[in-house]
């Protein structure tokens, strides 16, 4: 059995006039330590997929397993503790707590788990040690996103989920962020899932999942991922 299993997942939204299947029988699997890139057009269901995988949302039918654990059956309390110990999230809009300093934002996450990664180490790794006492409003977008990543990995999660992490960033900054994510995967062996609508990024992934209308249109492994530095778009 793979590390992550998505089996026939259906997610139906009923808020509109007609029920809408954002995910419509999605199935795929991810191995431990892989860097996965999920691509698809806007509205394909990528965010929905990630939210379900991250325990932020519930599915309508099907099942999701992480390391043998059935996520789709968890209650709210179990989901909270799942998010707490197993998942790290990175959003397009960093969502840092505005009144905590960079360091404290990371610290806040690290205090939630029993085996966190040392905050100073992470900040050093992301190269923001000298900005650690700044509040988010005093940081640039790229810096904020790096703090957001630091916050996500401080919990030492099994899984790092990134929803369009470079969506709000310029080319160079975005590249730097992706490089950081790639390093986490290759050096630390963390399982990283990145959502993007930029197909060029597929080259950096161990696995590429293409999503279309809530269904997996292709799922392929990349035996020879290239460094982000070599990708141009």
């Amino acid at each position, binding site marked *: 059995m793979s590390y992550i299993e998505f089996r026939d997942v259906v997610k139906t939204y009923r808020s509109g006039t007609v029920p809408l299947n954002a995910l419509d029988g999605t199935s795929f699997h991810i191995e431990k330590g892989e860097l996965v890139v999920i691509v698809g057009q806007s509205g394909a269901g990528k*965010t929905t997929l990630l*939210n379900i995988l991250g325990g*932020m949302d519930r599915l309508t039918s099907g099942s999701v397993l992480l390391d043998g654990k059935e996520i789709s059956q968890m209650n709210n*309390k179990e989901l909270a503790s799942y998010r707490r110990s197993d998942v790290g999230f990175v*959003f397009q*809009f960093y969502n840092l*707590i*505005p009144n*905590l300093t960079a360091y404290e934002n990371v610290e806040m996450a690290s205090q939630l788990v029993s085996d966190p990664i040392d905050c100073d180490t992470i900040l050093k790794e992301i190269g923001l040690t000298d900005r650690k006492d700044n*509040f988010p409003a005093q940081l640039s977008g790229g810096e904020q996103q790096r703090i957001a990543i630091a916050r996500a990995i401080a919990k030492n999660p099994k899984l790092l989920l990134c929803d369009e992490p470079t969506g709000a960033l310029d080319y160079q900054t975005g590249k730097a962020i992706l490089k950081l994510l790639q390093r986490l995967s290759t050096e630390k062996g963390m399982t990283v899932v990145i959502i993007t609508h930029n197909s060029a990024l597929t080259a950096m992934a161990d696995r590429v999942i293409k999503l279309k209308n809530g269904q997996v249109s292709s799922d392929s492994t990349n035996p020879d991922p290239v460094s982000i530095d070599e990708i141009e778009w």
Partner: protein
Amino acid sequence: MTPYLKTTFRSIKDSMARFIAILAIIALGVGFYSGLSLTMPSFIKTGDKFIKETKLYDLRLISTVGFTDDEIEEISKVKGVKAVCKATAEDVIVDVKGTDHEGEAVRFHTITEGVNELRLTAGRMPEKDNEVVLDDYKCHEEVLGKKVIITDANSQKKQGVFRYKEYTVVGIARSPYYLNFQRPNTDVGTGSLMFFVYVPQGGLNTSVYTDAFIFCDTEYKTYSDEYEEFIAKEKKIVSKEVKQIIDKRSQEGWKGCLYSALFTLNSTVRVLDGEKYIKPDLYVLGRDTNVGYMAFENDANIVAGIADVFPVFFFAIAALVCSTTMQRMVSDERTQIGTMRALGYSEFSIIMKYVIYSGSASVTGGLLGYLVGTKLFPFVIWMVYDMMYGFAPVEFESDFGLFVVSMSVSLLCSVGVTIVTALAELRGMPAELIRPKAPTPGKRILLERIGFIWKKLRFTHKISLRNVFRFKKRMWMMIIGIAGCTALLITGFGLRDSIDGIVDLQFDEILCYDISFTFMDDVKPSDMQKVKDDADTHFGVKRKSALLKAVNLKHNGSDAIREVTLFASGDAEVTSLLKARTDGNEMPWPEDGTIAISSKLAAKNGLKAGDMITFGVGDDGQEVSVKIGYVFDNFIFHYAYMSDKTYEEVFGERYVPDTLMIGGNEDGSEDVSDYDYAAYIGENDTVETWLVVNDLRTQFRETVGKLNRVVILIIGCAAALAFIVLFNLNNINITERIREIATVKVLGFNRRETGAYVFRENVLLVLMGFAAGIPLGIALHAFVIAQIEMDTVTFMVRILPPSYFYALGFVILFSVIVDLVMRRKMDRIDMAESLKSAE
């Protein structure tokens, strides 16, 4: 519907809690203000209607020689007199056969026509002379058809006044003459009247009608200044004319006149049998000598006093809440405002959206508040008063001016603030507005500079502390809001403390006697003592007692004329029955040459120990001046103490005691009821009247209890206000931080932690607000006490410790409830949804 209106209505729909909060707070503010403001007018209207319909007398004539039919005929021709009717009253002991009214003292009034008309509540008016109607306030329908029997306990002479031995009850009725629950004292039976009886004139053998009631049928509203003015003039006219009418007869001499009039403490006039021939006297009295009539106005005024202060407070808080809420809404929708600007909507039409929003909330709320408040408050308070009055269902007064004023204030609070806020936001360019406003940046707070404390704090506590100070405006709103509600609650509970204790203090700590007897004029002190000793022997007890002289004096103060009861005594025992305390220290009986006066009399006239005080004695302008020895604490009425020597010196006459005061048993035991003891001594012919202090105590307790219920109503409103404020501020707090809350949820905060993340700072704010509310409450309390002050009753300006706890308890309780509601709201925050967009 245009998209423009659609977005407005959707705004309302999407933020129902906010909309309702504004609506509720305005409704509460307007309701409280207009309701309390109109309570007294409504009461006055109710009283006015009843008084006019039942034709309560405008003037009461008392002649010590009585009125003849010819005289009445002549009086009816006096200018301004619409109707006049002679009347008399007779106190007697009766049984109402077949009921538990047995051996009760009652007052028979003769039925008057065209004035003091009865309002039947059951049965019919008497048609025969041996038929009577009874007091609806004290008797129930069970008495209908029963017989009122003049018992043999009455003297032969008294029985002779009654033409029949038995009277049939044919109806029960309310009399405007007795507006409230109080029934006067009497010289028969236990000294307190149980109820009144109205009988046709032919039912009594009286030949002398000492009273004549005049009804003027004025247009003027009862209790109004116009009425007072009118009646003052009318009184002069009537006095002059009636004097002439009576004087015509006076030439014929006064043979057979056996009446003397005597003013009692509460200014009701009682006619007593006397044994002497006396000079004829004519008294012309207004309604201001009628206990019920005066009490009614007084009680209505109590509410008015409260109505003056509290609503201002309510409005202030309402304004505060509305402004925060609307400000929040406009800021929330700034992107939308920017978009609309970019689309080419004018500033005016954009602002109109918010004006419509807050305007419709406050107009609906205001209307609702006015409609409900002006009915609810008079109605509920009238129910409270029902026990004392209840002569008619309450009439509701309305006041368009008041409505306009309260509406304007609430519109100012909501729409005014909205316009100002929206204009401020609109000043930005569309491009600027479309971009989301940066979230309030974090800042270091002062406490962080105190490293050793800051370092010790748990991480989550640090967040809360910073959050408290991060949203400065909300912090202030919350603190001010909670402080205001706390102040209201403390005031409410404090009022209870101030009011509650005084009756017991007055009758346990100051007037410590249980019964007082007034003797006939020429009874010797040794005989008084003998009467007492005889009672002690009879009951086998030994009760404390003292002999003294009671004199009613008038003090002509700068602000009012006060009736002061002077107790002069040379009895060593007197200090155990009449106590004087200054600042809690027990004082000796005043030294010779000095007088001790009660606190309010001193305070109101700026008098202190060492000053001279001058009293008026009787009606003929005689005055006496005495040096004040000390001022003692006192709560009800005005009193003065002096020694017998001082009395002789000051009044220039021999000191002869006329009053016997009886205290508890000397050994502290309690085996004879005051009533039995009093009744036994009262049997003596030498005793003129007596008073059991317990009656006085009950009477005051009822007055005070009534105030208390009004206070409870206020506490209820304050509590409702506190709740709305808390709810609204919390709602704002959560709404504006949904993203943040979603973020911590994603990070894996569990339910409890998420709750604590938001509410810990609330607890802090609530406690800060509460602390700020304490001094505010103390000040408001003192202010309210000053507002509801009555001349004859002094409230203690005190708030007992439990009151602070109750107030805190309420605030905490509300916080907890709001907390629970808000937790549910937080549970519903959809993480995926909240974090989706940039905004």
